[in-house]
């Protein structure tokens, strides 16, 4: 496979994952705005920060405003991480790597692009927002379904999955980081139940609220949520799960190519750290520090994969 093709697949799936996660973030923010109209601006500010577009937003709009934030995150072409920009970038990459995709995957991506371009052509009215966001999620599921149902399990598939999980690890870690002040137990919070709305945003933005409730009999604690999103290997959006998947796919590549690369060592180190670490120690050492290290590792790993498999010249 061409290095360029591997890179195209990797980025196609990073962008798809990003668009889905951004849609989930908007959904979480929107939910808060509905339930507590007075304090919603803070929540939108933290959503912008999570999506790593706070500076870009302020440059364009200044003050944080719910409707403008939604528009910026959803369809602004000036925001390269907006849902629509990410879908367009995914499709552009898909065009580039078309020969590596089955017709069904290509059509799913192309359809997604055409549908969302049409649906998001104009600013979305508040009452239509849930429907449009649901559409983004459904379209992502469609592409994923086509990928799983029609693609050969070879190196092409591995690069798609690497992109997905690298982006997901990054996105979940960011959500945790922005919320770390909420999760960080302070003297006053010890023993008290966490603000219901706050933890709901976190879990909702990773589609984990229901699972978490099942596992914890409806009780929530800062440590419990952080543990769930960092260490629970059953949770498909946790850092551990993403790291495991990255490891598995790199191992497939190692077998297919008969060659071990530096990125394999990097992911092993990262996985081992997650295996041996506990949530208590994370909180003792500082959640923010832990997340910062993790994000640095993930970004370094992305760069290493790029070099190991010659995405660029």
């Amino acid at each position, binding site marked *: 496979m*061409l*290095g*360029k093709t*591997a890179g195209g697949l990797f980025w196609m799936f990073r962008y798809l994952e990003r668009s889905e996660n951004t849609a989930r973030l908007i959904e979480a923010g929107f939910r808060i705005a509905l339930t507590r109209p007075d304090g919603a601006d803070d929540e939108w500010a933290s959503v912008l920060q999570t999506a790593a577009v706070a500076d870009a937003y302020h440059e364009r709009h200044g003050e944080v405003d719910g409707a403008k934030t939604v528009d910026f995150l959803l369809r602004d072409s000036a925001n390269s991480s907006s849902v629509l920009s990410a879908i367009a970038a995914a499709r552009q990459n898909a*065009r580039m790597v078309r020969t590596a995709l089955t017709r069904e995957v*290509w*059509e799913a991506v*192309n359809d997604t692009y055409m549908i969302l371009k049409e649906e998001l052509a104009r600013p979305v009215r508040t009452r239509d927002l849930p429907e449009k966001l649901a559409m983004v999620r459904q379209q992502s599921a469609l592409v994923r379904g086509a990928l799983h149902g029609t693609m050969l399990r070879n190196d092409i598939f591995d690069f798609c999955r690497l992109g997905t999980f690298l982006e997901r690890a990054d996105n979940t870690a960011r959500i945790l980081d922005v919320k770390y002040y909420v999760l960080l137990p302070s003297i006053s919070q010890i023993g008290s139940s966490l603000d219901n709305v706050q933890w709901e945003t976190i879990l909702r933005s990773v589609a984990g609220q229901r699972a978490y409730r099942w596992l914890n009999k409806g009780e929530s604690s800062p440590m419990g949520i952080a543990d769930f999103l960092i260490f629970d290997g059953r949770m498909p959006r946790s850092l551990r799960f993403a790291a495991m998947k990255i490891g598995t796919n790199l191992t497939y590549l190692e077998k297919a190519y008969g060659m071990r690369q530096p990125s394999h060592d990097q992911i092993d180190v990262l996985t081992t750290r997650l295996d041996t670490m506990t949530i208590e120690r994370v909180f003792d050492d500082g959640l923010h520090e832990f997340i910062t290290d993790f994000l640095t590792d993930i970004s370094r790993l992305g760069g290493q994969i790029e070099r190991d498999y*010659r995405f660029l*010249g």
Partner: protein
Amino acid sequence: MQDKSPFFDEMLAAEDTARVPYADYHGWFSGEDLSELRKKSIEAETFFRRTGITFNVYGAAEADERLIPFDIVPRIISAREWARLTRGIEQRVRAINAFLHDIYHRQEILRAGRVPVELIARNDAFLPQMIGVAPPGGVYTHIVGIDLVRTGENEFFVLEDNARTPSGVSYMLENRETMLQMFPELFTRIKVQPVQDYPVNLRRSLAASAPTDCSPDCTVAVLTPGIHNSAYYEHAFLADQMGVELVEGHDLRITDGKVAMRTTEGYKPIDVLYRRVDDDFLDPMNFNPESTLGVPGIMDVYRAGGITIANAPGTGIADDKAIYSYMPDIVEFYTGEKAILKNVPTWRCSEPEALSYVLDNLTELVVKEVHGSGGYGMLVGPAASKKEVAAFRKKLQARPGNYIAQPTLALSTVPILTKAGLAPRHVDLRPFVQVRPDGCTITPGGLTRVALKKGSLVVNSSQGGGTKDTWVLEE
């Protein structure tokens, strides 16, 4: 079809009387509901958009991916008509390859005075870098498209030869695919010669012209200028259908005397490169130094016999419009036979007598730029306004050698489906030929382009043309 048209209609001999090749189709069509067919027609468009069969239009700011309109009424050719055409096409393609070999070696045809020396020497399409180079297998034009027009029952003319990088074959294939999906019953009723093996044959055919030091499994790749090229879809389509890599210049480098592509496992040598990048951009070290689309040094590998480039660099000299007028001589010179396919009478404006005739009859003629393509920079006299004719006259007088002129041909029509039912529109045909060292394969049919605007004679997709599926009937 109300008025008696002065044009030859390929489907209807008279109102409601279909010609023989169309008899079965016409019978079927008459039993169909018009509104149902219109619906199918819209379905086809959705299908094309989903598949992403688009082309990019140069100079169009909005909507950089456009669809070539597809008409659901097929263009039908009988087995007998086709057999005659293929003989003519084969002869012409053989002559083109012999001409190219000659022009880059001994230049016998120039010595014999059959083609003027200055036409070659002062032609940008002639590449001095190709002099004395022997392409692997002796093939210059691995893929050729011969543009044909028809003016009567047995009147076919070659309008143009495409010996560089003929495009449109993806439309030929997707058009058939679409028709098979939409009208399966038609294909059980009417026996149509298949076209679907084009990509498999192309790969075989390219491999047959591989260099002698080729690896046993022969690595073929398609070279594209990239996703912004107007024909990118076709490049990706062909690579995909052949099961080979689609590469860009920056994926390639020269290692150990071979052109190699950057893969996830390191650099892998390529034996045959089907390039869809123009000569000028192919190699910044040997041609345009500004090019970022090509591979520095590929010409040196080529000259050393390390790679097959399809089509060979420098083949443009054979499809140059100034050379075109000499094609009957060229065919005769190399094959010893009279050309089976006729040329359209052509005035070379470089010749003073011809120029004065052209200037006197500008409103009757079609004038083309010698090096132009895609329907850009041409004048269709009868369809042009006075202002356009006057402006063109100035351009022509300023650089007569840059132009040729031809009579406005009474192009045949084939009906398209409109809101009001069938309506005749002018068509041309581009059959595709694959050339191997030991012969050639012509895919039955080719790409039919149709001018969708009533009365228009310009079929180019960039100028409002559409396409049709082309059927060659079984014996």
